[in-house]
């Protein structure tokens, strides 16, 4: 089975975000970057699928050359090869999907795994866009998956329940927490990763379809007010909720 995993390098979830002078982007200085947490589930699921059904796992990213580090991590986890499509700009989801779908065609994958969203823009677009461009089936936010010879069954949470989606391969699966427990690279894996192929090629994404007008700090929340201590404060709370917030 030809398995492709799309991964992205993003700021760690606990990093401070300083808005840059242009008021449209953030200052990457001093920000710690990591493999998108949901992409760890994607890599793990690809490796599990390969272990069960055989095949090759390729990891691919579109980003700056700094992403080599994250691709090496994926190789150390057990992926066979990596592709880095370099670009210095900030392509939007549509542009990213266009580049990745085009390159995917060369690999003719049976399965493409993505994260359910990248935790920078929390967009959740690249997976379903790539699927649509390639004419592949797609299941998003998947938390349990079974792969057959040329079919899949994927489960996802919906409001008030769960649903099971059945479809044909090739397919794009976007991975949600709960799908698996991502493995840590061991020393042997880290050593082996150094010798695995990591191909680099420059990419020229098409124009963005959304334009960033502004990046701003979130609206200030009203000044917090500690009403008091212990059960005695409950009366004050009820009064505030009824008469000030008017939510009761």
């Amino acid at each position, binding site marked *: 089975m030809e398995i492709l995993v799309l991964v992205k390098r993003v700021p760690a979830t606990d990093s401070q975000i300083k808005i840059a002078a242009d008021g449209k982007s953030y200052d990457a200085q001093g920000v710690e970057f990591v493999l998108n947490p949901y992409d760890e589930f994607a890599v793990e699921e690809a490796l599990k699928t390969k272990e069960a059904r055989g095949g090759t796992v390729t990891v691919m990213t579109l980003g700056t050359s700094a992403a080599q580090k994250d691709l090496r991590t994926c190789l150390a986890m057990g992926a066979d090869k990596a592709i880095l499509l370099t670009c210095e700009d900030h392509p939007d989801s549509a542009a990213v999907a266009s580049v990745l779908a085009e390159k995917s065609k060369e690999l003719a994958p049976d399965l493409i795994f993505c994260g359910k969203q990248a935790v920078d823009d929390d967009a959740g677009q690249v997976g379903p866009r790539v699927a649509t461009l390639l004419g592949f089936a*797609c299941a998003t936010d998947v938390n349990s998956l079974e792969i057959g010879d040329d079919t899949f069954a994927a489960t996802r949470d919906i409001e008030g329940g769960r649903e099971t989606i059945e479809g044909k391969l090739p397919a794009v699966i976007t991975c949600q927490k709960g799908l698996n427990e991502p493995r840590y690279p061991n020393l042997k894996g880290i050593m082996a990763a150094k010798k695995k192929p990591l191909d680099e090629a420059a990419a020229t994404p098409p124009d963005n379809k959304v334009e960033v007008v502004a*990046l701003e700090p*979130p609206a200030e929340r009203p000044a917090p007010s500690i*009403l008091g*201590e212990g059960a005695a404060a409950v009366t004050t709370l009820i009064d505030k909720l009824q008469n000030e917030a008017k939510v009761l």
Partner: protein
Amino acid sequence: MSNDVLVFVEQQDGQIKKASFEALAAGRETAGNLSGAVSAAIVGAGIRNLATQAAQHGATKVFVAESDVLAAHSGDGCARAIAACAEQSGAGTVLFAHTAMGKDLAPRVAQLLDGACTTDATQLSVVDGVLQASKPVFAGKAIKQLRPNAAHYCVTLRPNAFAASEAPAAGEVVNVAAPDGDLLAIVKEISAASVNHVPLQEASVVVSAGRGLKGPEHWTLLEQLVEAFGPGVAAMGASRAVVDAGWRPHSEQVGQTGKVVAPMLYIAVGISGAIQHLAGMVTSKFIVAINKDPQAPIFKVANYGIVGDAFEVLPALTEAIRTTRQ
């Protein structure tokens, strides 16, 4: 880009979902600001009767793509049907509720239309005749404002961030040919988690607890508070720490790697307020925090805080809420 707005309407058990009513109201306002018209798109099998409800909420036209082929939900089939509605209606903007279904469909529809897309918007505005969507990024640490550079703009709207309202309109039904050809994937099975509970992302009150509740056996205290609000009002949430500990299911997790909620009232009990938790609830209208540590970061975002032991405060709060409802 056309000034007309199309709103994709989701249904459950023959009723349009609350989040779709919110999208219809937001669509009406946006269309007003763009000097365009708002219409609705309904897709599926046996769904024609929903047109009346959509009209009641302001749809001047209702585009109906009905087919037995779509009897079981199919993401690819549905996306093609919505794209067909968008093309037939001539709308530039297509709005969705940011639900499990809406967020799955919007990027596909945008791709089919070769258009722009923004997911999980919490605010819409029209600036110089162009729709601008605001959405939280970096786990809510910043807000990004975006505008389209394409002929179509698909936007999903965070549930509870926009108010629903009625505004009767003509709701003229227009038939749209449902897509033909094979479906790539379909929903085979749906299982309800807990039928009696309001879905977490639609509840107007969310009561969440964290490690401060000490063990899964104490969640009855939280259930009692949920019940005190009466049927159909409140839902239960949890921090990741208690989900990871196996005390609560992941479906209840609120936060960056869980669900994002924006209820009228969010009550956090024994939750420290880590940035990843705040990402999932900081856009709630009113936040109440109950924590025994006055330095807990949750108090920085809470409108109202009580410093105290959850085991003492929770029963008192439950009793007081029950009394207000009598």
